[in-house]
């Protein structure tokens, strides 16, 4: 019983440490934003059930990502596939993730970088011009559709998508610069 309790405590610590990176990983497999939490939770529950199969001291994050990859693979096999963005794109991203997983060093790198990236993103959001901040607020915080945002901005959904595209690219550049500054 005591061993089970200590296992659970250790496992919940891993959930805290890994959840953010795992969700990012799942999204990068082409899973819809609203389904990311569900699949991440399923991955953790499966990991807990199979905890005896995990070898302590090895990379827990990489093991979780393997489970997540399998869950997304199952999702792609299912009819409907409502939890992924576009089937062919998701399949492509999944196969790429499978290839990457054969290089454990990359896996370790991913987990470590994620926290720094989130921290850099916060700084970068502060630097955005007002209109861009408003778009981020509407799209990601209020979760409005492109059409609704377009109506408010007196433009069309395609333009909003392009503005968001440039916005994400700008944020990515900013994060790279931030992380570069930290490194120097």
């Amino acid at each position, binding site marked *: 019983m005591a061993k089970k309790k200590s296992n659970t405590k250790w496992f919940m610590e891993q959930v805290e440490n890994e959840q953010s990176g795992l*969700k*990012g990983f799942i999204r990068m497999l082409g899973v819809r934003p609203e389904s990311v939490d569900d699949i991440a939770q399923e991955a*953790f529950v499966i990991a807990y059930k199979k905890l005896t199969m995990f070898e302590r001291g090895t990379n827990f994050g990489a093991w979780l990502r393997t489970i997540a990859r399998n869950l997304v693979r199952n999702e792609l096999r299912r009819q409907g596939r409502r939890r992924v*963005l576009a089937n*062919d794109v998701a399949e492509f991203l999944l196969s790429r993730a499978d290839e990457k997983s054969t290089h454990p060093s990359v896996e370790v790198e991913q987990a470590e970088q994620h926290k720094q990236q989130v921290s850099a993103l916060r700084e970068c959001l502060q630097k955005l011009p007002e209109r861009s901040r408003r778009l981020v607020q509407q799209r*990601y915080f209020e979760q409005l559709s492109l059409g609704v945002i377009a109506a408010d901005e007196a433009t069309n959904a395609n333009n909003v998508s392009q503005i*968001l595209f440039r916005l994400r*690219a700008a944020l990515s550049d900013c994060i790279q610069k931030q992380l570069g500054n930290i490194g120097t």
Partner: protein
Amino acid sequence: MTKSKQKHDSLPEHLKQKADSVQAKEVVSFDQAMGRIVDGEPLPGDEQIVIHHLRSHPQCVQQVECHLAIEAMLFGEARCDARAFVESVRVAIEAEETKSVFVRNVQEAVFGSTFGRSGLKCDVGDSDMQSKKWLGNAISLVLACSLLLASLIAGGIWNAAAIGEPVLVEVDRVDGTNAFAVGDQVNLRALVLPEGAVDLRLPSGVLLECQSPLMARFEHPMRLHLSQGRVDVDVGEEGIGFTVVTPVGEVVDLGTRFAVNASVDGEVRVAVLSGQVELRSQKVGTVSLIDGEAVRLSGTQGPRRLHSVEIRNHGIDHARKDSVIHSVSDNVELPKNRRFYGLVPCGMRDGVRAYRDRKAPRWEADPSEDFPEGLLGADLIQTFQTHRLQREFQLQFSISQPSRVYIFYDARYSPPNWLTQDFVNTGIQIRSVGWSSTAIMTKGIDPDAWGKIAIPHDIWCRDLVHPGSVILGPPVLSKKDLNTTSEYEGVKPSMYGIAVQPIAPPSQNIGKSVPEKSRVKALSVSVQQ
């Protein structure tokens, strides 16, 4: 230099320009298609364009991954739900473990403590006898399951209540029933409430606000089986993970407050009043609901948006039992839209929450004025601030008796036609108070003498002498407003508020469905009850 580059350089100038132009178009096309896919709103053909580029241009793969990664981080920042997520995993794990224990308890309660264990013994008896025993067990199993199922279907879950354990509850509040008295401490296994309402406090600090008619039973202090009626659950600090089991799935609280209503026809309604819950059912899997979201689902249909939820506030002396407002709905059709309008019976008063999607803003009187008397105790609809962005927005509701409908419209802007045509400006204002200084809709507003940022709202009204429906339009900028507010790009009127006060029959009251402007002004907003 690559071969393609050499080939490009060897082309005549006009062909070189053409090749560059084609390449630029391809890039734009890929960017657009990829942007739409990442945004979850692809057009036909987008997937083919993206997959073609992913296969032929390695840099495109990095680009897609980069956009998805940034998006994931932005959604992660927006939700700020790390703690709730960790709790959801903890609850899911506990549920997995509890499930196996519960199944064992059910088996033992129905079939006796030896159920399932005989199979573990290495019994080398006569094989024919073994098969007969197996057949006998199977028949017993089918009969017992049928009985259990029949008792559950008939609403007689009390037969199975022996499976649960008694839970010590303390009675916090009683209204309209003699079944309980405030301060009672009772060991409850099953709970039947044919009339009235009662608040029960569990040892974990969880508060259950039960409304009749209600039938429920405890499985243990953290699990309540609800077969009929509405229970509002406030889990407090210690009760995270409290679960309400309904005929169509389980509702697991991940913090704070939610409501579950099971009707006799098998439909279950779940609303999150604050915090987050998880709805788990075999049919739809796990669905997360956050503050302000509500769904209804049944055995045959998955979760659908529940447009309005009645929110009772015990601090209010309810002059009426039921709200006069019914069937609130809108024309907002967004994917995953599960937001509900808060319907607060008799809830209109100084300091009441104004919007469902903004916690801070409250309706308040002007500091130099009393709260408008006619508004006090009116039924309130808590609207959504984000709906101010919907150009074709329509909100519809019904009233069950003659009533005066009030609209609180942003006084900084000209009223829209739909308002001026059917409603009359009373000349009185209230304010929505408690906005952040950075909120888009408060641009240009300075804090008042008390340091509060408040948006003034004109009170408009209309009398409806017969029960019927009301349709309201969007808050919109007039051409005049557009000219005067051009320096504040994107600014729009704040979302309006709605209150409805029942009035006496027409013969005893003002007698016009749409009263004349001067008359309403003279009447102010005081209502003859």
